[in-house]
C-alpha cells in the first residue's frame, strides 16, 4: 500500500517545467496530499493566475504517479489562500541561487506603491550592488536585474505576498 509520505517523495522528484532546477514541492504549489478511498487527492495552487505551466504540472503529476502504479487520482486546484513566495522551501531558494536566479527577498510592505526596490544580491558574484532593470522578466514570476559589480544580467524571483 502506497502511503501519503511516498506520494510526497514522488512529487519531490517532479520538476517545475519553467524552472527545472526546482521541484514542484520546492515551489510550494502542492498544498496537500490525502488518501481518498483506494487512491489519492492532491491539491495544487497556481503561482500566478495566468501561469501557463499549471496544466503541464498537472500532467506531470499524473505521469509520475502512474509510473508508481497510482492511477486513482484527483487533482484539485484551489486559489485561496493565494500562493506566496514564502512557500518556496529553503532548499528551493538555495537551488535557485545556484542556478543563477536570485531568490525572493523579504520586501517592504506591499501596500506601499513606491517602496524602494529590494536589495537583491547577484547570484554570480554575490555583490549587493545591483539594479532593477524591469519589474517584469522572462516569466510572470521574475523581474529583470543587473549587477553593477560584475555586470551580469540576471533574473530575480520577485516577492509575491
Amino acid at each position, binding site marked *: 500500500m502506497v502511503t501519503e509520505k511516498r506520494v510526497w517523495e514522488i512529487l519531490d522528484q517532479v520538476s517545475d517545467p519553467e524552472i527545472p532546477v526546482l521541484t514542484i514541492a520546492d515551489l510550494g504549489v502542492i498544498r496537500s496530499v490525502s488518501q481518498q478511498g483506494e487512491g489519492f487527492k492532491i491539491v495544487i495552487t*497556481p503561482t*500566478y*493566475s*495566468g*501561469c*501557463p505551466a499549471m496544466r503541464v504540472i498537472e500532467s506531470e503529476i499524473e505521469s509520475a504517479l502512474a509510473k508508481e502504479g497510482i492511477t486513482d487520482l484527483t487533482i484539485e486546484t*484551489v*486559489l*485561496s*489562500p*493565494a*500562493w*506566496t513566495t514564502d512557500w518556496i522551501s529553503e532548499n528551493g531558494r538555495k537551488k535557485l541561487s545556484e542556478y543563477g536566479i536570485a531568490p525572493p527577498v523579504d520586501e517592504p510592505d*506591499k*501596500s506601499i*506603491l*513606491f517602496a524602494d526596490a529590494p536589495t537583491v544580491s547577484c547570484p554570480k558574484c554575490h555583490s549587493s550592488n545591483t539594479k532593477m*532593470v*524591469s*519589474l*517584469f*522578466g*522572462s516569466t*510572470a514570476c521574475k523581474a*529583470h536585474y543587473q549587477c553593477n559589480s560584475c555586470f551580469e544580467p540576471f533574473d530575480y524571483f*520577485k516577492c*509575491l*505576498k
Partner: protein
Amino acid sequence: MNSLFEYILRISDDSLILGQRLAEWCGHGPVLEEDIALTNISLDLIGQATNFFNYAAVVENAGRDADQLAFLRIDREYKNTVLVEQPNGDFGDTMVRQFLFDAFRKLFLERLQHSKDEQLAAIAEKSLKETRYHLKHSSEWVIRLGDGTEESHNRVQNSLNILWRYRTELFYMDSVDAELIQQGIGIDLNTFRNEYDTFVSSILEEATLTPPANNWSFGEGRIGKHSEHLGHLLAEMQYMQRTYPNMEW
C-alpha cells in the same frame, strides 16, 4: 436574469478585453523590457479572466464553458467598460488607459477579497497580488512620461485629455450591483470613489499633468453598448473559433 453571472461577466470582460489589447503589443513594444512587461501583464489579466469565466460558467449552469464565454459571444453580450477596449494608440495612451484601470481595479479587488461569495473572494485575493505590480508599473510610467521631456509631456497630456472621459464608467452601478451588494457579495463602488479620485490626482500631480476641465463622461459598456473598437478587437480575437469551431491546441 442571473445577477451573479452578469456581475462576474463585468469583471472578467474587463480583464479579457484589456488583456487582449495588451497582447497586441507583443513584438511592438518601444523597448524589449516593456514588450515583456506588457505581455506579462496581459498574461496575468487573461489568467484572471479565465478564473472568473470558469466560475461564471458554473454560476450560469447552461452548459457553456470558460472558452465559450470568452470567444463565442457577440459584441453586445460583452460587459467590459468602454475604457479597456480603446485602441492602444502610442505607449503613452496605453499607459494612461492602464493607470486609470489599475487604480480602480486594485481598490475594487481589495474589497472583493472580503466578499461573502467564497470563490469571488478567492479569485480577488489571488488577482490583487498581481494587480499591485501592474499599478506600480503604470503609475511609474505616467509620472515618467508626464514629468519627462516636452515631447513626452505633451503627448501623455493629450492621452489623458482623450481617455479621462471613460474613467467614470468604472463606477457604473445598477440593479445588478444593488442586488449583490445587499447579499454581501458585490461591492458598493461609491465607497471608494473618493479614494480613487485622490489617488489618481496625486499621481497626475507628480506627473505634472492636468485633468481636462470638462468633466463629461462616456461609456455604456456595462449594459453592452460599446464603441466601434470592440467589434474590430473581437473579430481578431474570435476568428479562429468562428472559422474552426471547437478547435483546440
